[in-house]
């Protein structure tokens, strides 16, 4: 970068509504800050913070984005309306994300009590393996009423010893 720093602030073109903002020095400083932040975020990713990693990464990304918007895109000096427009974009994106996540996170995934007799959605004829994994116990009241429920085909077929997904995956999953 140092090779470019000899380009100095130009004072010649100061006429006709010229707004001289930023300039080489500011641009170089911004670039250096961005590169340092990149190094920081890469470094932070090697430290295991659990969910904190995502938060740290997104906070640093937001700082970097702000630097780009404020200095490279001149919002620091420009009319506020441009900033409002950009913020509106992010605001409505936030609304979209928030409400969709609200649905996703609070959704109830119902499961039939008698899962062993359920025809597997979409792939008839195969055992609903993913569902049997999720079900903690097949001796639910309804099946207990029918003697010999242990004879259900799904229970009889050896279930693959895979861990259950954290959220119930669609029953359509084939093994």
């Amino acid at each position: 970068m140092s090779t470019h720093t000899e380009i100095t602030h130009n004072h010649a073109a100061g006429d006709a509504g010229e707004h001289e903002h930023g300039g080489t020095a500011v641009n170089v400083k911004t670039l250096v800050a961005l590169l340092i932040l990149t190094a920081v975020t890469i470094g932070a990713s090697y430290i295991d913070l659990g969910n904190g990693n995502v938060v740290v990464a997104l906070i640093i990304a937001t700082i970097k984005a702000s630097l780009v918007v404020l200095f490279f895109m001149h919002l620091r000096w420009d009319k506020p309306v441009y900033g409002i427009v950009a913020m509106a974009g992010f605001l409505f994106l936030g609304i979209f994300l928030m409400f969709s996540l609200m649905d996703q996170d609070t959704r109830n995934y119902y499961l039939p009590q008698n899962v062993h007799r359920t025809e597997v959605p979409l792939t008839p004829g195969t055992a609903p393996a993913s569902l049997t994994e999720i079900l903690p116990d097949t001796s639910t009241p309804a099946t207990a009423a029918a003697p010999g429920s242990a004879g259900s085909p799904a229970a009889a077929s050896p279930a693959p010893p895979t861990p259950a997904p954290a959220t119930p995956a669609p029953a359509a999953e084939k093994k």
Partner: protein
Amino acid sequence: MEYQVLTMGAKTGSLPRPRKNYLNESHGFMSWAGTLDHKRIGIMYLVGVLTAFLLGGMFALLIRLTLLTPTHTLFGSKTPLITAEQYNRVFTLHGAIMVFLFIIPAIPASLGNFVLPLMLGAKDVAFPRLNLASFYLWVTGAAMAILAMVLGAVDTGWTFYTPYSTTTDGPVTLMTAAVFVLGFSSIFTGLNFIATTHKLRAPGMGWFDMPLFIWGIYSTGLIQVLATPVLGITLVLLMLERGFGIGIFDPRIGGDPVLFQHFFWFYSHPAVYIMILPGMAIISELIPTFSHKTIFGYRAIAYSSVSLALVSFIVWGHHMFVAGQSQLATVVFSALTFLVAIPSGVKVFNWLGTMYQGNISLETPMCYAISFLILFAIGGLTGIFLGTLSTDVHLTDTYFVVAHFHYVMMGGTVTAFLGGLHYWWPKMTGRMPSETWGRTACVLYTVGFNMTFLTQFFLGSKGMPRRYYNYLDQFQPLHAFSTVGSWVIGLSLFMTLAYLLASLRKPMDAPDNPWGGTTLEWQCSSPPIMHNFEEQPVVERDPYDYRPVKGT
């Protein structure tokens, strides 16, 4: 030129008409196809959307005719008019054409394009090339949609719900691509109008000196810019799903069909306001002009336009109450949905407040405005049934919903569009359309509309699901009545088309300000000259000031 003040409905007709106007400035095909003039682009858009309306209307009449009898036969014939597969394609085409090719561009891109710069006292929109590009994107999208129609048409419904749309046969990808292109046409129109409103207002015109039509179009632009990109990406995902099986929406490979609905309605609910806000904006012009009285609660109406645009982004989940979204989301979306009632109510009451103690002349545009008030009231009030959770469970996905959104989109937007068309027709063409025919058509339209769609509320309440080809015999009388109503609407619209076209054969007889309006577009000649105003107008008074001015 001073802001010429017109008092108490003084209709000026004796101004000398300039020899050249935007219509006869230049001639030949390229002078239109390559024009950057917002007025010519507006006219081209008008012809385009009216053609789309005609086409979509034909499909509507065909749908109603098919549902006339439970056997879908006419005159004792044995074979049905159309089969179930054809019926599904017809209602899909009706919906897709009406929504994407007609209503969304109808008011902003045609009337808005023509009037917005005039009202602002500007010579053109901010980006004339982008304006023309937007029109050609519309033409491209329309051509693609027509091509898809010729290639067999799609049967997905205009909502493209997955996984039906990803598994059904037909040129779905082409149709989706058409809508994608139309989406960008809409974005560019909205973007252009926002920039125009910000930067090209006449000297002296502050934000609260703008006509309310501008506020409505501006709010519409906000939605077009902020919501339509999400439609774009949704359609891209849908195309990739069909083409490459990426599986975001496909439950077979781990996707979530309800996710598609979130994506789709995040656009398509705000899109409802892309349709209705310009309609409301026209009514906000018509009522003060024909009441010859200043608008009541200017700021409240202006704010309500913007707040409707904003609220429209946080209520999309009310399309999905029984679609498998979480119960919490359903309750939250229901609660937020009721917020819509407030700005809508504010507008309606302020319009009534404007009429109170006015001096109301019932010319054709005003007839449409009153028709709008009645139809939109029904559309809005039936929205309460659908926003309320317990009744929505029963009513959603039935003809009740069909009737509701036709009352809002057709009873609201199309009625306002017709009102606006008659209002600005003299400005656009320089001719006065026949008042007798106009009022007759308006009354016929209102009667026919209520015959067609009021009936459908009862059908829906009784449990008639929408998009049904076959129905139970018990619904036949109501369906038949609705079909007869559709003929009345059809008649009134053909009548309108006929007398509007007929008026073009007359010599130019429209005065510059036939209705006594106070906004800037009535300050230029009818039709306007190429660059709109002889001199840059300067605004010195409120937009709807009907008080007499000293010295006139």
